[in-house]
C-alpha cells in the first residue's frame, strides 16, 4: 500500500535535539513505518532569517531521492519572494509552505494574500502548520503563536483558487474552520491527521464521520514527532481498505489534481 507523508522535515530544529535529520535517516524512518513517499520541508528555511539555504538543501535532497518531494518555504515579507516562488515552480514542487507566525508575521495581511493569490495563479497548494510543537513545552525563546482558525478561514476566502494543506491541527481548529466555511471553501482545504487524537477521545473517528474522509491525509511531523503515531491512529480505526487508502494518499492525489 502506498502511503505519502505530507508532513516531514529535514535540518536541525533550533530548540531541541530531535536526533539525526539527514535525508538518509528520514528515508530509513519512512521505510520503518511503511511510508512510500514524503513531502519534506527544511527547518532552517522556516527558522533562519534567510530561507534560501534551507530551500536549496531541500531541492538537492529531493533530486537525490525520488521518494522525497520538496515543499520549499516562501516568506512573503522578503523582497525576493516571487523569485523564490518562480524557482519552486521550476523545480516542480507539489506545494510551497508559509508559516507566518513562525516568521513573526501576522497570519493574515496583504503579503499573505498576495502570496496565496500568486500560488493560486500557479495552481500550487500552500501548506501551513498550526504549530510545530505543543505550546506547553515550547522553549521560552520560541514565542510563535499557533496559527488561529480565523486566519485559515480568512485565507481560504482570500482568493477562489487558493488551496491549503493544514498540518498539526487538532479537532477544535479543524471544526472551527470546516464548519465556518462554505462547502466550496472547505473543499479547498486538506488536513493532515498528525495532531488529531485517537481513542479514547476518538476525535479522528468523529471527524471522519462528521466531515468525511475526503478531507484528510496522512502526515506525521517527523522527526519532531514519532512517525508511528499517525500509523497507530489509523490502525486503531475500523476503516475500510478503500477509506484508509484515501487517507494514505488518495485524497492527496485528488487534491493535487483539482
Amino acid at each position, binding site marked *: 500500500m502506498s502511503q505519502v507523508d505530507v508532513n516531514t522535515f529535514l535540518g536541525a530544529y533550533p530548540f531541541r535535539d530531535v536526533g539525526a535529520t539527514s535525508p538518509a535517516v528520514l528515508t530509513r524512518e519512512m521505510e520503518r513505518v511503511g511510508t512510500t513517499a514524503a513531502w519534506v520541508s527544511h527547518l532552517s528555511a522556516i527558522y533562519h532569517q534567510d530561507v534560501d539555504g534551507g530551500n536549496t538543501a531541500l531541492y538537492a535532497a529531493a533530486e537525490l531521492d525520488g521518494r522525497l518531494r520538496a515543499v520549499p518555504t516562501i516568506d512573503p515579507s522578503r523582497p525576493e519572494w516571487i523569485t523564490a516562488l518562480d524557482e519552486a515552480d521550476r523545480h516542480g514542487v507539489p506545494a510551497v509552505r508559509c508559516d507566518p507566525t513562525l516568521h513573526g508575521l501576522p497570519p493574515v495581511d496583504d503579503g499573505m494574500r498576495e502570496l496565496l493569490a500568486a500560488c493560486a495563479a500557479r495552481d500550487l497548494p500552500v501548506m501551513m502548520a498550526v504549530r510545530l510543537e*505543543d505550546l506547553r513545552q515550547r522553549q521560552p525563546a520560541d514565542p510563535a503563536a499557533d496559527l488561529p482558525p480565523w486566519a485559515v478561514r480568512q485565507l481560504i476566502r482570500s482568493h477562489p483558487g487558493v488551496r491549503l494543506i493544514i498540518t498539526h491541527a487538532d479537532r477544535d481548529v479543524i471544526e472551527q474552520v470546516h464548519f465556518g466555511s462554505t462547502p466550496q471553501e472547505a473543499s479547498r482545504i486538506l488536513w493532515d491527521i498528525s495532531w488529531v*487524537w485517537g481513542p479514547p477521545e*476518538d476525535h479522528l473517528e468523529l471527524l471522519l464521520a462528521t466531515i468525511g474522509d475526503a478531507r484528510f491525509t496522512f502526515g506525521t511531523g517527523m522527526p519532531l514527532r514519532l512517525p508511528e503515531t499517525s500509523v497507530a491512529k489509523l490502525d*486503531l480505526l475500523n476503516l475500510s481498505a478503500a477509506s484508509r487508502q484515501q487517507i494514505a494518499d488518495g485524497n492527496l492525489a485528488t487534491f493535487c489534481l483539482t
Partner: protein
Amino acid sequence: MLIDVHAHFYQPAGGRPDWVDRNTSRLRAGEQIGITRHVASILGTWGRTSPTYFPSPSDVTSGNDALLALMREHPDRISGYACVNPNYTAHAVAEIERCLAAGMIGIKLAASRRANDPLLDPIGEAARRHRVPVLHHIWQHRRHEWPGQEASDAAELAALAERHPAVPFILAHIGGGGDWTHSLVAIRPVTNILVDLSGSGVDGGMLEACVEAVGAARLLWGCDLTMCTGLAKLRHLEAILSPADLERVRWRNAAGIFPDGSLAA
C-alpha cells in the same frame, strides 16, 4: 503482558455526557493494542462539582467508588489507584485504607498540593505501609504557575521520593507537556522514581533520552488520555530496545512495584 500504568476512566457523576462511550473506547482500544491491565484512576467528578485537580472529599470518594465499580465489572482488566486530595489529610489516609482494602493497588496524587509539601508525608507513609506505588501528576519543568492546578515538577517529586525511599514513585506522563529533559536530569539520581512514558507528547528523541537517562529498568509504559500515542511509543520501543528490555517496560517493571500478583492477566 502489557500494563498501562496510567489510565483514566470517567464516571456518571462527572460532567461528561459521553462517559460510557469514552470508557468503552478505552477498553476496545486496549484490546486492539493488547493491554492486559489498565491501572486507572478517576479524578473525582472531573470538574463537575469540584475542580478536577482540587477535588472535594465527597468527589474523591465518588470517583473512587466509581472506579471500584468498574474494577468489579472488569476484574481481569481494570485495577485502580486510590485518588486522594492531601489537603484533607484524614480523609485522604482513610480513603487510601478503604480503597486498598477493596482491591486497589496504588495511590494517585494529581495536583492538589505541591509534591514536596510535608502534607504529602502521611500519603507516603501509607504507601510504605501498604507497599504500593504512588503515581504523581507532573508538569515537566514548571516554569510558572498553571491555572487550575498546583502542579509539581520532577525536582519537587524527587524531594518527596527522597523522604520516602522505600516507596516507588511514578513520575506521570513524561510526554504530558513541558520540558522532559529537565525531569530526566532531576530524577536520574533518585532511584525510587520510575518514569511513566504516557502523554500525548510523542517528541522525536524523547524515548531514547529516557532510556539514556534512567535505563529501561526504570521505565513504565502507559497511555494517559491518548491511546494512539501509547501504541506509537510501544512500536518505537520495539525498534530501539532489546527484547528483554522491552519486556521490562511492557510489564516487568510494573510487576515489580505493584503488590505481588495484582497484575496477573
